[in-house]
């Protein structure tokens, strides 16, 4: 890069983000390389947790950049494959580098992000240097890529026997016509067979661009030292103006029922209610309000739960969650039952009843306190804080948005959300039955 005046002027945007309610604060920095940096100083704590991640997960298979005017589609499983390969340096694996600092290190790939992390109490700056260096320095050859194919293939096949995993992906396959969220994060044995070094490098340079990444650190760290290391190690690269896209996804479900047989004791089920996805802060609001709806409808203190539990239709494994991300949103109820279809029918009945008769306002107030308390508890923990910050950072939000949204939610918001997010026509049930028929 050519600088006409002989030296580069580092322009750094820096602000302190404060939260009145909790008295907590963190520093946000937009680094000149394009990286978003979040630093939350936890005085008097010993542990530091750092995450360096890219907004690149298994669903990001279709994209374009300013150098490529047309969208291209790549095989499934590359994000996860890259995570495996980045853990190998040219001469050693990354764990042996961390051994010298005493940090414990790991990485994960989800549907919409890939994160590399460490946790330590000493030598935090040495560990940070390791983290920033290896993620920015990919090294693989056709040979090392081929070697990985067998290992990842085994990992994929291992999950074929896992009933909890299968019941979930079978449901996603029923809910979604086109969205890649329905494909296993690691891809398929067929899709990873198409992966080679060229494709990995192409995706690496597209998604591991600092403009598409976030660094999040919580712990007893010196902000200036962190930024000094960032200045030293972050590589300048031009913004590729990355755009991702998905095939059009109809509002209706693809299949209302998916059944598979495996070696288990009692039938397992996932019931998904498909809804329209939202973006940014609206997505946060949708997730939180839907969580309230789920608690009110069917948590352990609900009448619905108690009735089905006492009748032996569900057992204590019954639970619910919101599952959402870029281009997908659904509410899932899962567990074990001798009659999963009855659970679905009862749920639909309960949802329709609540739409007509309303939800329980007293329970709403209790759930709100409990939800809020859990978020406060997380503030004790460096790992939880760093995770909240990176999740917010990837969506260009503030780390306090979740806690503030929960504190502001009203009963009316939640009743409206029930109406909006639970269309009882857009339901898929996935069932895993024991081999040899139903257990009696």
């Amino acid at each position, binding site marked *: 890069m050519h600088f006409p005046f002989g030296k580069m002027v580092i322009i750094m945007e820096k602000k302190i983000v404060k939260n009145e309610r*909790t008295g907590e604060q963190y520093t946000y920095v937009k680094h000149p390389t394009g990286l978003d940096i979040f630093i939350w100083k*936890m*005085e*008097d*704590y*010993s*542990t530091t947790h750092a995450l360096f991640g890219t907004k690149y997960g298994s669903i990001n298979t279709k994209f374009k950049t300013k150098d490529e005017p047309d969208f291209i589609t790549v095989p499934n499983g590359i994000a996860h494959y890259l995570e495996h390969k980045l853990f190998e340096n040219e001469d050693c694996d990354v*764990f*042996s580098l961390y*051994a*010298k*600092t*005493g*940090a*414990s290190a790991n990485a994960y790939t989800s549907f919409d992000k890939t994160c590399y992390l460490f*946790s*330590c*109490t*000493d*030598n935090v700056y040495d560990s940070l240097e390791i983290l920033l260096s290896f993620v920015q320095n990919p090294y693989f050859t056709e040979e090392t890529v081929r070697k990985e194919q067998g290992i990842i293939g085994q990992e994929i096949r291992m999950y074929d026997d896992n009933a909890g995993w299968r019941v979930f992906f079978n449901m996603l396959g029923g809910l979604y016509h086109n969205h890649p969220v329905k494909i296993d994060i690691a891809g398929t044995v067929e899709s990873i067979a198409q992966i080679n070094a060229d494709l990995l490098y192409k995706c690496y340079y597209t998604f591991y661009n600092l403009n598409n990444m976030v660094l999040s650190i919580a712990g007893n760290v010196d902000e200036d030292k962190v930024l000094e290391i960032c200045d030293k190690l972050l590589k300048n690269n031009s913004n590729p103006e990355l755009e991702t896209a998905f095939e059009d996804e109809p509002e209706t479900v693809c299949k209302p029922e998916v059944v598979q047989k495996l070696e288990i004791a009692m039938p397992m089920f996932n019931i998904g209610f498909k809804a329209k996805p939202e973006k940014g802060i609206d997505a946060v609001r949708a997730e939180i309000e839907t969580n309230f709806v789920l608690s009110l409808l069917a948590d*352990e*203190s609900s009448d619905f739960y*108690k009735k089905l539990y006492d009748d032996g239709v569900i057992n204590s494994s019954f639970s619910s969650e919101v599952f959402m991300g870029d281009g997908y949103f659904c509410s899932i109820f899962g567990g074990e039952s001798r009659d999963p279809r009855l659970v679905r029918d009862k749920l639909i009945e309960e949802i329709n009843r609540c739409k007509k008769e309303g939800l329980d306002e007293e329970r709403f*107030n*209790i*759930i709100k*306190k*409990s*939800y*809020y*308390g*859990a978020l*406060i*508890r997380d*503030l*004790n*923990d*460096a790992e939880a804080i760093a995770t909240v910050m990176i999740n917010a950072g990837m969506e260009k939000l503030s780390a306090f948005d979740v806690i503030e949204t929960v*504190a502001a939610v009203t009963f009316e918001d939640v009743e409206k959300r029930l109406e909006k997010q639970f269309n009882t026509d857009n339901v898929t049930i996935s069932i895993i039955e024991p081999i040899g028929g139903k257990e009696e």
Partner: protein
Amino acid sequence: MAVKYTREKLSDGIHYNSLINKRQKTNTLIIHLITELSPETASVNAIIPYVLSGSSESYPTLTALNKKLSSLYGAVIKGSVSKIGDSQTLSLMAGCINNRYTFDGEKITEEMTEMLAGCLVAPNTENGGFFEKDFLLKKQELLDDIDAEINEKRSYAFKRANLNIFKDEPAAISVKGDKSHAEKLTAKAAYEQYKKLLATAQIEVFFVGAEESESCKKIITDALASVDRNYAGDNTSAKSLLKSELCRVTESHDVAQSKMVMAFKTDYDNLVAMKLMNAVFGATPISKLFMNVREKLSLCYYCSSGYNDKKGVLYVDSGVEHTNTGKAEAEILNQLKAMCDGDFTDEEMENARKAIINSWKGVSDGARSIAEWYFNQCYSGTAYSPEEQIEKLMNTTREDIIEAARSLKLDTVYVLTGKDGAEA
């Protein structure tokens, strides 16, 4: 930053320990009842904390209790049982966010403490026993738990190995007891045992929070003062005796992979040196066992070591192909010999030291981890802070590690193998 630790005697065998760390955003209270492990009482003791944490006189059902806890900003009350050396510990834990984070400044810590005290001293009873219906549910859960021990092969092998390692010692007894005793449990007998424990057990109360809470302390002190005490004395553990002959046991079971547990005994008393030796030898992913037995020779799917300081026993726990158990045993002994011969690099030693410091320094950050650290200290009759132990670790030398390694004598080799494992 150090945590401020104080310990105060409330009455015979009852202590109130407080751990103050101004950054804590939650308040945690833990009440431990420590008693001897015996085959007759292990099961009944194991069920008591679960019964107590599910209801009380004031909140007679789980639903009522949970509803109240939810309204206290998602406070929790939990029961658990654990084993420490030759003793059994029954624990009740309660936690909530600090009052200052509530929407309207509600005094939720005090309310939660009242609830916990109620669970401990005023349980839900009927006809001179625990409330029958709830008790029977907990009993079924205990029986299911005992049955399920077989599902998790690694811990099952460990449990079976303990029977041989600690032959004729209390530490051999499973923390949940055995099925034959559990099946005979009644709500009435359990209630009698509960009353006896309240009177006789060593009781250690822990409070962890940002600042002292005199009101919580008073609630707990008053509740415990209402109990008629007949203290049985402090609990201790004896170092396990080395058997005159090596004990070899192989049991057959439907497993795809054999599980091998080797136990070495020692009367060496420098705990910190033994921890460092254990870290170099087998407790980390950069240790000798991991790098050699697992990675280099691929003899085991997992192979790691752990040290029980209360009993003076170092374990090596491994998962091995049936045909490789002999080879794996030889290689594990080989690696221990390397430790005894001082055949480890300074880098191995320093990396291990860093890994331990990393974990000890982090202890103060979590309410439960710091409470557990000091509970261990109380049991051993010491009060070392993590910082003090780190100081000792910094001064531990290569010679100390060698001395620690040389003190270890192989006592037991236990193998859980497949049905055809014996011939293989």
